[in-house]
């Protein structure tokens, strides 16, 4: 798959965003003060951060973002077992209809080297805009989801998480020959005409570039899944623009509406421009 111009544009925008963040001056914002025990004081789930201030301005400009509407909810443990694999669930309290639907979801990890973990472009074919995945969290900080509705409204849910080391955790791969294998799994039987939950897994190291090879004592170059395009019976369900903040073997649980028997398909491209695909016949 060649990068279409809008997708290429998104990549360039992402790179510029990351560069912009990398150039953040190392100053202590007045909103981040040391508290007793060395913890930052902005640990409330709805608090801001210097990184968020920059991201917000670059991604959304001055558009209002409603953090109290409850239209979207982020579920994530305060402390995960491992920083390299933090389970995240996004719940949308809005039915996905052609009249009004969740058009875009942005998943951000404020303090990661590359904070924009995922941008999902959705269609009403999702049926219910709930997603689950696993992310890397490098430092104590906020994880945020911003839901953009088809009418232009922005809604946010955020959580402060106490996890670290996710981007430099030692890799855990054992089957490099399987890289790119793209698998669908239905946890339950498909429901014709209704949102049906499915798991999509891409076997991939999703290397961050911050992991040490303990044998060569060299850093493993970054190598990660960049895009996933999911369709059903030839109709787009969602596109995902991803980064290495998504954990090894990126997995997404999502919904789609099978209106009739058809093929559920995923097209995957990684950062070496390698293309993979997976499919599942429904009905």
């Amino acid at each position, binding site marked *: 798959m060649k990068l279409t111009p809008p997708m290429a544009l998104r990549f360039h925008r992402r790179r510029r965003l990351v560069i912009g963040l990398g150039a953040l001056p190392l100053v202590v914002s007045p909103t981040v003060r040391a508290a007793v025990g060395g913890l930052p004081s902005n640990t409330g789930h709805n608090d801001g951060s210097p990184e968020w201030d920059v991201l917000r301005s670059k991604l959304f400009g001055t558009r209002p973002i409603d953090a109290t509407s409850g239209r979207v909810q982020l579920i994530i443990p305060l*402390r995960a*077992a*491992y920083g390299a694999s933090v389970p995240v669930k996004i719940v949308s309290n809005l039915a996905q209809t052609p009249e009004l639907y969740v058009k875009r979801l942005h998943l951000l990890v404020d303090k990661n080297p590359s904070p924009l973990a995922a941008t999902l472009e959705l269609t009403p074919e999702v049926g219910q805009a709930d997603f689950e995945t696993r992310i890397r969290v*490098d430092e104590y900080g906020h994880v945020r989801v911003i839901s953009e509705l088809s009418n232009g409204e922005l809604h946010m849910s955020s959580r402060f998480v106490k996890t670290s*080391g996710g981007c430099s955790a*030692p890799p855990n791969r054992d089957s490099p020959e399987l890289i790119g294998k793209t698998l669908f799994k239905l946890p339950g039987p498909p429901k014709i005409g209704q949102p049906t939950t499915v798991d999509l897994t891409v076997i991939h190291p999703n290397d961050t570039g911050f992991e040490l090879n303990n044998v060569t*004592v060299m850093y493993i170059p970054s190598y990660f899944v960049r895009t996933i395009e999911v369709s059903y019976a030839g109709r787009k369900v969602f596109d995902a623009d991803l980064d290495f903040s998504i954990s090894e073997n990126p997995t997404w649980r999502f919904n789609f509406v099978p209106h009739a028997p058809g093929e559920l398909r995923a097209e995957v491209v990684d950062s070496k421009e390698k293309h993979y695909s997976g499919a599942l016949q429904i009905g």
Partner: protein
Amino acid sequence: MPLRQRPDRRRAGIRVCVGACAVALGLLAGPGMAAPPPAMPAGHKNEGIPPAYRPMVVEPTGAPGRSEFDLNPALARAKRENRRLYVYLGADDCPYCRRYENFLRKNAGELVPHFKPWLVVDLRSSLSTLQSQLFFRVGQQSLVYAAFQRSINDERARMLVYPSVWLFDPQMKPLMPMPAGTGTFETVEEQLEILNLVQ
């Protein structure tokens, strides 16, 4: 991200990771590590969980190559006293275990009263005990580390990390998913979050 920033960020990331936990893998403890864990203090003495917490110390039993911790006496006592279990797995040669124990020692005045509803169980292992050699006995069953973790639906089945903490009710039902290592609760405020089961 400007390339010149990468090495510093990378080292910082490694320090964060190593600082968070001592993974019981030879590769992380190896000499080639860019940022080794802090050295064991000279002449250190392994006291495990400080006595102020009145820990129930459990030493491993078993033949060489098999290190088994029998949790049955602790469970029986927890049931008898109607207390929750705070099970700590430490290693005698693990700097991060010493760090957590020192944190508990230093803050015992503040923390001990909050540990009252808990029976602290101090499992004393060693970094050289690999996860394939570590067993837990509950009832008649003796389960190797990964199987034990799977049996209680604990995500940490994948990797043994020293130190580790489990929280159980007297029936040995896990009370809260716990992180690998203790690095995320080494302030009084955060230790209290753990004891109060804040998720």
